[in-house]
């Protein structure tokens, strides 16, 4: 049964309420439920509303360019290849930076775009700047890279790590299962997502207090 807008608004409200009640704790959204919607500023100065992307698959990537785990996936070209695979099948790729001002990974829009250009990450659709951590807390993003996939109907279908081997070693990529690619392949084939929730690994997202 498709949840009514009322129910989805309720879910969002409940997540927010739970977040408030548990103080600093993050309330992760649930796979299979409508993905929380947000509106945020992008690196090129525009405003992006997640709801405007309804009808397309959306990938969320939390990043911090100085985090060794992020560096591993960009240094090896793994993240760029995943971005290429996603956008080639019509998905929208949102890179989100939730590092608070003064913390590791916090950059302004121009720097964020320059970093992507230097890393030849030219398939990123939008870079979302989230210095107050609102979007990050809404999704319960804990680490960089923390990955989420939302299907065309706006349902969260994957949350977790980029792949199956938590390490900062380049050599582990060869043996790892890329969960984001697996999710996108399953979505395209109309099949159930093989591992909808996995443990994300990486550096802690540097939220402000």
């Amino acid at each position, binding site marked *: 049964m498709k949840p009514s807008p009322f129910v989805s608004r309720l879910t969002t409200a409940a997540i927010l309420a739970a977040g408030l009640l548990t103080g600093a704790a993050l309330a992760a959204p649930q796979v299979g439920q409508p993905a929380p919607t947000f509106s945020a500023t992008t690196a090129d100065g525009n405003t992006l509303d997640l709801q405007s992307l309804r009808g397309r698959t959306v990938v969320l990537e939390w990043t911090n360019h100085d985090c060794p785990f992020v560096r591993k996936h960009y240094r090896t070209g793994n993240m760029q290849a995943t971005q290429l695979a996603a956008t080639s099948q019509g998905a929208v790729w949102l890179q989100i930076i939730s590092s608070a001002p003064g913390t590791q990974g916090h950059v302004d829009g121009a720097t964020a775009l320059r970093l992507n250009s230097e890393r030849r990450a030219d398939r990123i659709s939008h870079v979302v700047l989230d210095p107050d951590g609102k979007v990050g807390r809404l999704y319960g993003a*804990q680490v960089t890279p923390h990955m989420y996939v939302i299907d065309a109907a706006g349902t969260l279908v994957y949350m977790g790590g980029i792949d199956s081997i938590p390490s900062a070693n380049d050599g582990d990529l060869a043996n790892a299962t890329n969960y984001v690619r697996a999710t996108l392949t399953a979505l395209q084939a109309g099949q159930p997502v093989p591992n909808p929730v996995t443990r994300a690994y990486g550096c802690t997202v540097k939220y402000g207090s």
Partner: protein
Amino acid sequence: MARSRTSSSVLFPLRHLAGLALLAGGALLGGNAHGAAEGTEGRTPHVSARLVAAADAVAPGERVTVGLAKRITPGWHTYWRNPGDSGLATQVHWQLPAGAAAGPLQWPAPERQALGPVVNYGYAGEVTLLAEFTAPADARPGDVLDIAARAEWLVCSEVCIPEQLDLNLSLPVAETTRTTAHSAITAARARLPQPAPWPARYSRDAHGLQLAVDSGALPAGRGEAWFFPYEWGVIDHAAAQPAQTGSDGLRLTLAPGPLGGDAGPAVLEGVLVIGDGSGATRAYELHAPLGTAASAATPAPPAVGLATALGFALLGGLILNLMPCVFPVLAMKVIALVRHGHGGRDHAARHGLAYLGGVLASFAALAAVVLALQAGGARLGWGFQFQSPLFVLFAAWLLFAVGLNLSGVFMVGGSLAGVGQSLTERGGYAGSFFTGVLAALVATPCTAPFMGVAIGFAMTQPPASLLSVFLALGLGLALPFVVLTLQPALLGRLPKPGLWMLRLKQALAFPMYAAAAWLVWVLALQTGADGLPLALGGMVAIALAAWLHEAARHAAPRIRRTARLGGTALLAATLVAASSLQPAAVPQTHSATAAPASLLPLETYSGTRLAALRAEGRPVFVNFTAAWCITCLVNERVALERPEVAAAFAAREVAYLKGDWTNQDAGITAVLNAHGRSGVPLYLYYPAGAGATPVVLPQLLTADIVLQAIAPPPG
């Protein structure tokens, strides 16, 4: 020798560091006064580490404890085996001499490290990870074993840096092992969790995961207790763990993590750390299977004694005769009564007793199955057998076959010389017995008032009590008919047998067909459409076999034998085919909750969802139901799916959650148990306010009962 590598962006001149480390020598990780073996210290920018042993020599083939001793720069930490929200567990890759072996890492109890909203489990300061090392059996005294290891860890403060070190340790071989205390190993052993001396179990309820430890009263002045799970994602690592202590032990309420929902683990494993109030802690390894742990905020199930339970069971069984399930069988019994009534009083009484025997035998068999499955660790509830697709399939076929029999497609035993004769024949106690079995079978998807409490009690009792409660229920079910057969006055007033009985009997086939059709629907919910060809094909085969059986009755002996052989083979093939029945890979769990034209905006029940709604301050109405539970379906039609109820729900902003028990669901079973029930339906109303006590509604609902329950308290 220590070789340091780091992939950090903050690269130190490593050669200098290594030199520093050599100079530092035994100063760090010191306290090794007794000369236990230890390797050279290695250093990374944030950790200095070395391999240590609790011996200065090892005998061939013997075991000694070794460890990776780390000293972590103040303000930084490394991680436990479950690192929590972020972080990575330390890894040790041993490189050992041929024939040597190292056991799994033993982890001292961790601490919580919070960074903003993210909580990790790990260590600060000094920590030593232990392992049991076994020397090669063919080592010779005088040899020196070179134990090497590459250790990898993630070390974090505000930022995280993956580091690794190659470390080694030289351990001499001697005639006998010479164990020696090493302060790092001694300190680590003191922090290793001990196997908990108490049983523990966990359950899911509206508040999350309830971890119950039967520790008895803990010493006064006890500090806080914290549970660290071995697996990531089962609990919300960052959430508070409200604790309740009592004379029976300790109970922690844990918020479920992304993998801690209804498909969570069968056993919750991890480390429980209990403070003694003075800063010292004790760590215990817990192994908590999914079991009954009544929620702290849920009232204890009503205390019921065996006598009360027996009374309730008898009463419930009596009322069961009025429930829709048993109705078709009740009508069959009336026919039987008419039939037997004219055969004399003793004759009727014997039929009544045969019927009673059939009912009691069925309930005894059910109790035996429950006991056998309970012994195997299964947690069951009333009607559990309908959670088995195979049982549903056979029940559908059986009811269909009974329908065919009532329609006159085939006769069992006797001859077709005349229906009148067969209806008044004197024998046929087997038929009465079978009617009793059938009554017990069709009764189980129904729940009558009083039954829930009695069965809920019985499920937790020793075999003798369980059996007696089940038999009391059966006695209640059979009693009205048995009493009738003993009333000569009543028997005398019964109408005479005649053609009307044949017509009534034929008419009664249709409730049987309807019940069979309904069970096929339940099966489709359990197995998906894949179960339908088998169920429906089996029905065709049964009908064909029945027709062959009957048609052959008056044929020449040779043809009769062939036809009956064919019919039997057909039935056997059908039964063999049934063994191929598979539950759907993705059970259609929500089908029973997805009423197509539901008036109430409903959501699927989960403990998390309920907790979230209650945290929001919403009143919540929870309906635990199953596709095979007729009482549930009737309640929904007559009491819940009513415009006035929907309007009241909307006006009072009552959230409506539905939990589907059509298939097995340990989470829902736990909630049922927490309320002293063993089966559906269960209706709970949680008034607004996170601390409010839920109201348990009766098993038979009316719209008024629901409206009253959700009405604000007077005044």
